[in-house]
């Protein structure tokens, strides 16, 4: 009884602090939105958010989200887009209010288990060479492998491999090494790892920018009637020697419409246009044609139906040198990219999604 009472007190205290932290994080996002807005205005040399627009934004925030306080990221989107459009979701609302409802953390947690992807999605996922789970090596089919077998296989494999640590995000704890350099003892036992072949990407994507694996982010939405819709498709790529395509690490993106036609220009992480050609390779973005574009979308939709516990999933897809789409990872935790919503949305204009 005493334990229950104590646990209850601790639970309440933890919830209270969690609430304070959530509100602080929302404040931080608002402060970042102000800062980013100033950068966008400075770069564009013009501002569209005057008093009247700000009033419209605040009214929309109050009416749709119950508080005017959500206005800063909407104002940022307005500066990015050049006009205010009703239907946008402010990032602070999206991350802290909306996302936990549509993707309950208890279920979205599974998308962090990278070693589980092949078991969950089969051949759509990149078939791992080995998995390292609970201190043992396994084949992709979960057969236990001896360390000597792993070493011998990788020595003969004689190619690049990717070693990813589980429960990490944003390209952290990913190592690209030659298979002969792999040392099993370097894997830290309480953690799990996936050991994958290094993907040689499709010729066109390699010509776009050869230093990084340039991936499609396809966002699917599970609707109340059980159907899965595509919310948006973007292609991300690295620049200036970067080894990753992630926007937070300086990458750029182009948007694809539902027919697979790319936007003429690319955008940076602030949603600012960065030109019609890749800044290093000079590749013309409008010439990009993704092979099997509609098949890729269908594969993502089918995969989402295999995990209907969350409503929104961001799929990171690479295309190998044979033109086959392969799932690199899926994101049920923070699946959206809010600048895409700002540049090409609103994707969530209907109120029933809230």
């Amino acid at each position, binding site marked *: 009884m005493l334990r229950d009472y*104590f646990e209850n007190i601790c639970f309440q205290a933890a919830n209270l602090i969690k609430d304070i932290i959530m509100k602080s994080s929302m404040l931080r996002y608002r402060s970042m939105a102000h800062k980013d807005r100033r950068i966008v205005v400075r770069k564009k040399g013009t501002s569209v958010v005057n008093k009247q627009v700000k009033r419209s934004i605040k009214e929309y925030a109050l009416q749709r989200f119950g508080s005017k306080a959500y206005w800063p990221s909407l104002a940022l989107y307005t500066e990015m887009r050049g006009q205010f459009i009703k239907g946008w979701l402010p990032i602070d609302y999206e991350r802290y209010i909306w996302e936990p409802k549509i993707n309950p953390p*208890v279920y979205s947690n*599974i998308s962090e288990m990278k070693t589980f992807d092949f078991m969950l999605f089969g051949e759509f996922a990149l078939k791992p060479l080995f998995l390292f789970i609970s201190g043992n090596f396994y084949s992709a089919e979960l057969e236990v492998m001896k360390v000597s077998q792993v070493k011998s296989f990788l020595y003969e494999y004689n190619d690049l491999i990717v070693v990813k640590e589980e429960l990490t995000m944003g390209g952290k704890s990913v190592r690209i090494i030659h298979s002969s350099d792999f040392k099993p003892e370097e894997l830290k036992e309480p953690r799990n790892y996936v050991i994958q072949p290094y993907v040689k990407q499709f010729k066109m994507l390699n010509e776009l920018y050869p230093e990084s694996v340039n991936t499609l982010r396809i966002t699917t939405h599970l609707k109340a009637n059980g159907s899965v819709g595509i919310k948006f498709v973007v292609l991300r790529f690295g620049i200036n020697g970067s080894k990753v395509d992630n926007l937070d690490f300086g990458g750029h993106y182009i948007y694809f419409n539902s027919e697979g036609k790319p936007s003429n220009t690319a955008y940076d992480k602030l949603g600012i246009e960065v030109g019609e050609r890749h800044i290093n390779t000079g590749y013309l973005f409008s010439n990009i044609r993704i092979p099997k574009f509609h098949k890729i979308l269908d594969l993502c939709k089918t995969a989402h*139906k295999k995990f209907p516990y969350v409503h929104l999933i961001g799929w990171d897809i690479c295309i190998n040198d044979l033109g086959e789409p392969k799932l690199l990872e899926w994101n049920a935790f923070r699946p959206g990219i809010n600048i895409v919503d700002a540049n090409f949305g609103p994707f969530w204009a209907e109120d029933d999604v809230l």
Partner: protein
Amino acid sequence: MIKTIADKYFRFVIVLKKLIKIFSIKNSRILAHKYRKQVIRKNKRKVVNQYVKRIIKEYSKHRFGKKTYWPYLALYTEIRGEFIKGWLPYDYFRYILLPRMNPPEFCYISEQKTFDHRLFGDFAIKPLFVFISGMFLDADFKFIDENKVKKCLSDYDNTIVIKEETGTKGKQVTIIHSSEFILDKLNRKINYIIQPYIKQYKVLEDLHPGSLNTFRVTTFLKTEGSVDIKFVVLRFGVDDSKVDNISSGGQYIYFDISGKPTECAYDIKGFKTGNRHKNTGYVFSKINIPMFQEMLEKCKDAHKKYPYVRLVGWDVCITEQGEPKLVEWNADNPGFWFWEVIYGPFWANDDQILEFKYIN
């Protein structure tokens, strides 16, 4: 500034977790003392004298690094009538060892009952429907229209079981006739599994027909990747109970690895309850389960499909046709101490369990 607040929050949460753990351990030791007094009163004898207590404390210090783990070991000694080296005290098992063997982030999935059939295939009872994210789906996760669900259940014309995804210990389980199914009674924010009602194997039905009497098979994934059976018990209901759960009054008998049952059953506190079922008179030693080995193999194979946790408790029923079927699996708290006392120690020679590390 916000980063500082966030850091403070995370530190505070860690401190809170540690406090809860310390408090839980202390509280469980208080319970151990309380149970021990009850056992002594009931047995009218005391086994743990000063000499035995000293041996227990020495063992505790030597194996677990602290003498403070002695209360559960003393309780075990009173129940069993002698002290046996090799036992794991419950407080050590539950709060120190288990989180290392079964990291909490990999245990959530065992609470996802709607996912069992996807994960373990036909070893799990094939659901009629699952209700996930406010939608009805069939066993293969194909969307089913609500009107079709109503019609199917009306045509099914049999008893069904509706389980809430996060329900434990037989709670949040409803058994109704399929024609009585009312869709609006489901909470759209909760996931459910709708299963056929299992008619159990004749022997188990004769043992106690009022409850679905299930085996708890506990498997352990060893460091080299093979899976061992740690112990097997059969739980059954008594009196008018509809569930076999021990914490709801159910009793249990132990089966050795060859499938031979013990003569006597026990209750939650480890007290013997006799050689026959108190209501049906069924003699426990006569329970014969021809598909016992098949059941163990199925549990081992299932564990190999989810090697993220080392200790899993499988609740398995035997159908009327003699087929072992998974009712649910438990990675979060596979249960332990009363079985360890009566039939253990299960970890006496398994030093590898003391080497597991935490994920930081």
